[in-house]
């Protein structure tokens, strides 16, 4: 039995690797396309515009600003990633509790968790962003001292709410997917409800929750440029500033593609790993 399992898992891994190399090919094609684009644009710029400044030079000139933000300020692509990290951490924490609340035996807790989940799951991210950016105060006073709340802090909070709701659904689904026999046998061994949940059910859920959790992290990262609409100095805003400063239409395509490439390079490996985890977990279960 054991050797049989080992063999199947080996073939599965081989298939994984094959699939991975296919995806590598895809990445190669994409990079190739990008290079071709840059090449075409280069020629286009040389023919049409100022030959002194090629597109590549312009890209290199603006990259530090777009990536790290203005000097001595927090911004740029780094801010996008930071926001995604913090919003994910907050969303995961809140989502865990709301998700557990949805299977609570207490009627009020269960209903209200369900309501919170549905409310934040079904509303657009941008509407939530507007809601909390415009309605949260700019400063708070705690124990006599005033603290300024920066735009990106509020944006991070707003982005963590849909993540909370969607992760709550995942937690609920994972808890419900564990056979009820587990609950019953643990009960017969004298575990309390809290012990069963935290020591027996949730540890088994983690494996099932990792792929969708990673998927939602990708979706969150892809949503972070939305904060540029509300005037946060993220990578998108700074790219537009750079484009406005150059004021030349032939830079539009390469600049936007350049920014998209960063997001792609960041998110694509996560998506690949999500797929691999998914495949591995569904087969062994």
């Amino acid at each position, binding site marked *: 039995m054991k050797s049989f399992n080992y063999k199947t898992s080996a073939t599965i891994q081989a298939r994984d690797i094959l699939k991975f190399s296919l995806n590598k090919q*895809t990445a190669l094609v994409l990079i190739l396309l990008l290079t071709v684009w840059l090449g075409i644009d280069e020629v286009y710029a040389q023919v049409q515009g100022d030959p002194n400044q090629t597109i590549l030079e312009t890209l290199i000139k603006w990259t530090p600003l777009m990536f790290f933000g203005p000097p001595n300020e927090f911004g740029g692509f780094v801010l996008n990633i930071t926001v995604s990290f913090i919003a994910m951490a907050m969303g995961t924490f809140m989502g865990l509790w709301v998700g557990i609340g949805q299977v609570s035996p207490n009627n009020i807790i269960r209903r209200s968790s369900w309501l919170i989940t549905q409310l934040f799951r*079904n*509303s*657009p991210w941008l509407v939530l962003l507007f809601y909390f950016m415009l*309605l949260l105060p700019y400063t708070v006073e705690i124990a006599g001292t005033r603290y300024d709340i920066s735009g990106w802090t509020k944006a991070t909070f707003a982005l963590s709410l849909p993540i909370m709701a969607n992760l709550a659904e995942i937690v609920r689904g994972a808890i419900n997917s564990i056979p009820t026999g587990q609950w019953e046998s643990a009960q017969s061994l004298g575990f309390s409800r809290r012990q069963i949940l935290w020591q027996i059910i949730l540890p088994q859920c983690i494996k099932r929750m990792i792929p969708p959790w990673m998927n939602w992290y990708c979706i969150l990262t*892809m949503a972070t440029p939305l904060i540029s609409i509300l005037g946060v100095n993220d990578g*998108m805003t700074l790219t537009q500033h750079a484009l406005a400063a150059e004021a030349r239409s032939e830079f539009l395509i390469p600049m936007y593609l350049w920014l998209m490439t960063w997001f*792609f390079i960041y998110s694509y490996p996560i998506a690949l790993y999500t797929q691999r985890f998914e495949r591995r977990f569904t087969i062994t279960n």
Partner: protein
Amino acid sequence: MDWFLWLHSEHGIKLTIFYDHWDRGRFIKGIWTTIHLSFVTIVLSIVIGIIGAWFQKSNFVWIRLIVQGYIQFFRNTPPLIQLYFFYFAIDTFLSSIFNIHGGILGSYGWAVVSLSFFAGAFNVEIFRAGVEAVPESTIESAVSLGYSRRQIYQYVTLPLAFRVCLPALNNNLINLIKTTTVAYAIAVPETLYIANQIWSDEYNVFEMMNVVWVIYIIIVGFLVWLMDRWERSTRIPGFGQ
């Protein structure tokens, strides 16, 4: 109507859309724009999904790679930047090539194009999974009955695949409706954009924000209900679940 006027004078809650003729008119237009923007992009994205899933089964490696590249590009880049890319970059590029002044499509047109491609990329994957779930023996029996490759796809594979992928499709289409708010960024006059105009004119941010939130929840809720009914009505006993 009088009640809303009373609400304003007594409690300071300014729901102008219920008693101001002008505000109500443009707000309803905004909701209508959201609805038909959602409808057009849903239809187009499904078409893209079907065509893409068909191309993914192509015998040519290059076509498969291009479809795969398209999917990965649109899945792993932010929809907002895609929208800007289409509206600002591609539009300028194309109109300079063809010497058209004022752009090829308006902001609404580019929103449709960009959002359809965005949701279409997810739909291709969803349909592919559905097509793969159709049993091989069903296809073989269709072949033995003399169906051509296109006919098999049209009459056998797709109807069955649709039923398998409806839950995933639901999720994606709901997500698409939520993403239509991004069109705000290129000044498509949809609900959020109009609401922003109204609260700038009337200084009623809090009230309008809540109204917008409720409206989106109603629209999304309606689609959830509709798709749920569709899913149940097309169910074949013994197939899928």
